[in-house]
């Protein structure tokens, strides 16, 4: 009985993965550009804008009328230190996925740090309730499958707003599914998952408030903020925006302002992604060389031991 249930769950995950891969490939085939938000033409980044706007409105209504009252009640009955503890607990579980993606992006040093974070928080931090690793100087990194795919050179695909789940991209869908699969919290039962979602939504409350207050067009604000943030995480902060991809130079005084990227710039992110992938493999090669040298040195020392006797 237990075996059948497990098998069914496995089949379910497989079928979701197959569907998502199909969706993902469709997405990749649709657009080949990686969005550097606010700079490329909207239609290229967001070809399904009308659909997305409807989904955005649906999600907003759902959030206002369903999620928000529940979150308000949750925040009211839950002291802030408990919320922090719950947030830390789920964040610690997510670190498993972070380590996995560190390794797949050939960030071995960072992977070591993140694994250290996980061990420290899981043991002395009482199962992750306390984030003592940050106090100890181990900064939390944000890595996921979408970022890994990006560093492998897989294009972003179109921007999409999914019902309930919110903003994502063609590449982000399979990435998100794998993130869920690699998160231990996904296997502990529905009430715990609900608590994770609730706590996450409660923590996002201030961000949602900012969108409501600052945005002239909340849909565009959310889309651009989301895509820029993703781009920032993928490039580890070395975003194009610092290199003035936003052309702020006025070409002349005759009411003419250059503001759009030229076509050569549009293809640059792809080149960059490939370069990142190549750099990743070079890093892997270096680390293998370093490991082999360490092993060689160790074996030499071992060889010397009997001789000294």
């Amino acid at each position, binding site marked *: 009985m237990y075996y059948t249930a497990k098998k069914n769950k496995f089949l379910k995950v497989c079928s979701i993965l197959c569907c998502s891969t199909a969706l993902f490939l469709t997405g990749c085939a649709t657009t080949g550009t990686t969005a550097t938000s606010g700079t490329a033409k909207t239609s290229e980044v967001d070809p399904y804008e009308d659909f997305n706007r409807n989904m955005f409105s649906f999600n907003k209504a759902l959030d206002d009328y369903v999620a928000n009252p529940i979150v308000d009640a949750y925040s009211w009955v839950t002291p802030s230190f408990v919320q922090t503890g719950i947030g830390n607990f789920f964040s610690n579980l997510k670190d498993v996925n972070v380590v996995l993606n560190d390794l797949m992006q050939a960030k071995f040093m960072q992977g070591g740090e993140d694994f250290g974070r996980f061990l420290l928080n899981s043991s002395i931090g009482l199962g992750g309730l306390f984030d003592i690793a940050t106090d100890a100087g181990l900064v939390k990194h944000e890595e996921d499958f979408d970022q890994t795919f990006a560093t492998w050179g897989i294009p972003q695909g179109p921007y999409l707003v999914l019902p309930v789940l919110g903003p994502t991209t063609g590449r982000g869908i399979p990435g998100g599914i794998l993130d869920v699969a690699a998160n231990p919290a996904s296997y502990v039962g529905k009430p715990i998952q609900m608590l994770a979602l609730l706590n996450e939504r409660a923590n996002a409350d201030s961000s949602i408030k900012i969108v409501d207050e600052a945005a002239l067009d909340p849909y565009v604000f959310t889309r651009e*903020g989301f895509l820029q943030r993703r781009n*920032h995480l993928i490039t580890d902060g070395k975003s194009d925006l*610092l*290199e003035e991809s936003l052309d702020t130079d006025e070409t002349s005084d005759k009411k003419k*302002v250059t503001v759009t990227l030229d076509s050569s710039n549009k293809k640059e992110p792809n080149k960059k992604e490939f370069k990142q992938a190549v750099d990743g493999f070079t890093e892997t090669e270096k680390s293998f060389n370093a490991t082999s040298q360490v092993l060689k040195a160790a074996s030499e020392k071992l060889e010397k031991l009997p001789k000294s006797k």
Partner: protein
Amino acid sequence: MFHILKNKSIATFVCLFLLSICFSNAHAQEETAKQVVESFQTELISVMKQGKELGFKGRYDKLSVAIAKSHDLTKIARVVVGKEWAKLSEEQQQKLVDVFSQLSIASYAYNFKSFSGESFKFASEEETMRGGAVIHAYLLIPGDKDVKFDYMLKKKGESWRIINIIANGVSDLALKRSEYTSILERDGFEALITKINEKIDNYSKQ
């Protein structure tokens, strides 16, 4: 005759000397990009500290001076509407610059209204390919994650002016440009101005 000439040459020398002092003083008063950012941050923290006493109007007045000294709001307003700028009449352009400036100041006055130990920390400075400068800094918030702020500056005449702020990888200029161009394309100029005025009203009421 010689006496007059001598007096004239002394007078000329004195004039040149005074002029050179004036010039060197003016030159010395020009702030570096880093100084422009740091002066603005200091003013912002000072306004936050007096936030409650000043009220929205007081914060707005103080910040409007600080922002005018440190930001190039005309250029920012120009960039946020992209190629639509060229399609606007001179009157519309001026109107846009005015309301955009008011919104920017109001947004600062609304969001930086109280102080709970926040401080800015300079990280590094770099020059950009096109003669601009980027100042990397962090906003340190007690009990919370640091927020990375990257200030992009350009020279306006002889002075450095902020034209963009990137907070944790999200560019204010790019975000606004997407919004503004989208509204201009979808709903037109008047709708944009109405929406900006609504936001200014909301900020000032709260």
